[in-house]
């Protein structure tokens, strides 16, 4: 079999430096905080109320942003311009706590659609890492050199994206009369062949992976106090041709991880491998250990709430949401967000920055301009039209027995397409151009996920710079696939054009993600799809993020053990809790269960691989 060429890392793929951009808060009289409170006994709970309790093994919890000084932001921005490590230094022992905290910033909190857990991780110690290095070197399509001396190695599995929304999609786009048969056929193909209803649903799996890779790179730095770096590989596992070429090695890796036949039937596949090792002194990022921990707590806060940058102007919203604030997303911040996106795309594909700028298609919609408002209206109208047609054409034989629940849920999606914000990026790629550039499409989609995520993070970080005490944040970001998915329904079943078609004519674009930036001081209500769909949980607020034992296993002494599942105990610790940035009511009362409970100190201080340390 012909070996596929490895990616060539171009010399001018180095990231362009990012600069901190201050976001001016509004005048003091306009500043508002969410100030969410518990519903009093007898009072109806709404999406604006604090949850009654949190029952969760996730390390995240409900957090608030921590203010960062300009100098701290300058240091933090280095995390968004990391270059790959050239080699690993010799490594000391790794404690259980460090591994937990790294996972907390990686696979346990990486952005995914809010009601989906699509990743699993198996972590190996030094001895197994040496064996994995040998396997990695046999792979075609490596995008970076395999390094020796890894302290540990993560193997990440991913699975196709499946949620109540994708269940609904099974019923979309079928001709009448024959729909009972075509729906059944599609359902079977989805179940047994992991087919997708629309292409963008398939892309979501890869976008999530790119986001995770970007997060894991930062996680290795922060959890180790800037002692360690990660070398992450995605390319050998992206695309059918690569997977076929690497089938034998993939099988060995899967066997090391204990992937079962049942796992494979559910669609779990090796998607990413991350070697983590001690950084060479001159390759350290240059962050103070205390700042590493503060950033860890802040990154969890950014993942804690689903920020919706729009103004929640519904009547039931508290007063602070109705008032407009004299704040704008500075143009410089939008530029930095764009720069971060190109840096990330270049970093993960290995193409030059110039090539990244050419391949990553970003349409910027400035809502503050007349053209921007018009563009936004057009998009909303288009997406609404698509939704209307979907609702009209849902098979009655499925919708009526559910009391029209399906069409109601389909219509509810309009809220997801509100696209409120001041600066909006619609991003995507041209498959034709990507492949002409020698990139594998799936790999490029992963890199784009990383790009969008990093772009949003830069804006969110700016929203913490010099954060006044009477503000929740200064800028918020919402990263969405909803509008793209809805557009793809229109493309696939209604003959409509891609969202990016007008901005990039003749380039056959495929839109992948939308992210909106909004300057505001009020954080939005916490919420997720499960809460909306599940009556029993309404108002209770469900935290669907996984606990460590649910998605991470650690291999030590030949045994695979779920992380933080020991002697009947599972994790209830919130990572980086010493920063105490937990959501509280205005009178200081806390959400029961939010603060969590630390893992026994004796256990968390243990070396994970005591016998394998060099």
């Amino acid at each position, binding site marked *: 079999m012909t070996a596929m060429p490895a990616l060539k890392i171009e010399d001018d793929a180095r990231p362009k430096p990012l600069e901190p951009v201050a976001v001016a808060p509004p005048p003091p009289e306009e500043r508002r905080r969410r100030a969410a409170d*518990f*519903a*009093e*006994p007898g009072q109806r709970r709404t999406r604006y109320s*604090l949850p*009654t*309790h*949190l*029952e*969760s093994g996730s390390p995240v919890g409900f957090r608030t942003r921590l203010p960062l000084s300009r100098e701290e932001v300058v240091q933090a921005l280095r995390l968004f311009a990391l270059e790959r490590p050239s080699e690993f230094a010799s490594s000391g022992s790794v404690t259980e706590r460090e591994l937990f905290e790294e996972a907390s910033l990686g696979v346990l909190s990486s952005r995914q659609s809010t009601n989906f857990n699509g990743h699993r991780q198996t972590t190996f110690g030094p001895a197994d890492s040496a064996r994995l290095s040998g396997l990695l070197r046999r792979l075609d399509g490596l995008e970076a050199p395999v390094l020796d001396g890894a302290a540990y190695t993560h193997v990440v599995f991913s699975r196709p994206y499946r949620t109540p929304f994708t269940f609904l999609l099974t019923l979309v786009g079928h001709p009448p009369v024959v729909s009972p048969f075509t729906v059944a056929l599609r359902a079977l193909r989805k179940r047994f062949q992991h087919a997708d209803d629309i292409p963008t649903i398939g892309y979501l799996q890869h976008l999530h992976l790119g986001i995770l890779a970007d997060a894991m790179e930062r996680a290795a730095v922060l959890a180790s106090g800037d002692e360690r770096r990660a070398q992450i590989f995605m390319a050998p596992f992206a695309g059918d041709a690569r997977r076929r070429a690497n089938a034998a090695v993939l099988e060995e890796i899967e066997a090391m991880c204990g992937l079962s036949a049942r796992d494979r039937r559910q669609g779990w596949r090796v998607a990413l491998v991350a070697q983590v090792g001690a950084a060479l002194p001159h390759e350290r990022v240059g962050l103070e250990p205390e700042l590493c921990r503060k950033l860890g707590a802040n990154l969890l806060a950014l993942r804690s709430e689903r920020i919706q940058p729009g103004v929640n102007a519904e009547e039931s919203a508290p007063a602070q949401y109705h008032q407009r604030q004299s704040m704008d997303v500075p143009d410089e911040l939008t530029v930095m967000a764009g720069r971060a996106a190109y840096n990330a795309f270049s970093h993960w594909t290995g193409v030059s920055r110039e090539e990244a700028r050419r391949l990553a298609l970003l349409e910027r919609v400035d809502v503050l301009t007349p053209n921007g408002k018009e563009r936004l209206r057009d998009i909303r109208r288009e997406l609404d039209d698509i939704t209307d047609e979907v609702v009209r054409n849902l098979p009655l034989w499925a919708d009526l027995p559910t009391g029209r629940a399906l069409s109601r849920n389909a219509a509810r999606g309009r809220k997801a397409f509100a696209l409120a914000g001041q600066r909006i990026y619609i991003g995507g790629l041209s498959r034709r151009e990507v492949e002409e550039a020698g990139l594998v499409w799936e790999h490029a989609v992963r890199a784009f996920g990383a790009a969008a995520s990093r772009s949003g993070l830069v804006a969110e970080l700016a929203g913490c710079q010099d954060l006044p005490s009477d503000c929740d944040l200064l800028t918020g970001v919402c990263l969405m696939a909803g509008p793209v998915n809805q557009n793809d329904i229109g493309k696939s079943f209604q003959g409509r054009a891609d969202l990016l078609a007008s901005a990039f004519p003749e380039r056959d674009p495929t839109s992948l993600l939308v992210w909106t930036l909004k300057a505001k001081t009020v954080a939005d209500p916490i919420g997720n799809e499960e809460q909306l769909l599940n009556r029993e949980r309404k108002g209770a607020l469900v935290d669907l993020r996984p606990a460590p034992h649910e998605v991470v296993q650690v291999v030590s002494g030949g045994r695979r053990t779920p992380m933080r599942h020991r*002697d*009947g*105990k599972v994790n*209830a610790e919130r990572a980086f809790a010493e920063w105490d940035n937990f959501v*509280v*009511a205005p009178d*200081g*009362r*806390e*959400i*029961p*269960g*939010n*603060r*969590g*409970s*630390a893992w*026994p*100190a*004796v*256990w968390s201080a243990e070396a994970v691989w005591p016998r394998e340390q060099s």
Partner: protein
Amino acid sequence: MAGGVERRGGVAEGAVVSDVVLELQSPPGTLGSFARALTGARKRAPAGVSIPRLQVNLSPQVAEAQRLAEYRRLCGLRDDGRLPPTWPQVLAAPLHVALLTHRSFPLPALGVVHVSQRIEQLRPLPADAALALTAIVEGHREVEQGVELDLVTEARLKDELVWRGVSVLLSRRRSHQARPPRRASEQLPGEAPGSLRSVVWRAGEDAGRRYAAVSGDWNPIHLHPLTARAFGFPRAIAHGMWTFARSLGEAMQELPGDASEGVLRVEVAFRRPVLLPSAVHFSCRRAEEGVPVGGIAFELRSKDAAKVHLSGTVEVGATPEVIRPSP
């Protein structure tokens, strides 16, 4: 009594007061005890009669390793090679049932409620310690809800007193079978600031059966909704000692690093049963007014923190102050 000897002591003047001492080589079976509890449900103590001094002694027992491991798992306790502070109370539970169902015990055993518990562990106990146990009940106090009595348990390791517990039990008057009144400590939803730990646990539907298998406490109120309803509960309720052990294990992690070597003192008040299944909220905080300095105060509440199931304190001191029954 199977495997044991019963001795009777002297008779005092005035009201009939007998001393009974049971000497056991092995823990008594609880099935017989529960059967006696059922048949003794109609007991009424004559006016003016106090509870005689009843005592049971159990020869040294070593904890079965598997049983101890399962106990730790159920209660979320780390295996540190020592006996959990609540373990002697678990070992003594069959002795307590034997006392409360003895023919000389004048009150009906059914319906006796465990109101509070005090424990003093004078030193850490190795997991393979052979503990000799003594349980004593004597006298009572008249309280508003009924009759309150102290059940004192002592554990000895080679004649050295190493552990002492006082269980305060309440035998309710018929007119006081209703729910306790709302207490001042119950509060609105949300949790006061200052918690060191705040976590929601889930008590599964089978929690009572699993704990019964380890502890030997097969009281039907803990086992199944049907058996619990026969005794007036809407669903099975968790063993108080399980909720206590679980809470104590969590709270002890906040004690100073050298806590394992000192004298451990624990007090807990049981306020409201935990229905099964349910989610409950545990929290603990540092000493404040009324709590021993350096100690940890802990609470188990409903998941929204509105209702209190139990509250307690744990501290480590240098000097033993052997706890005594209430006056």
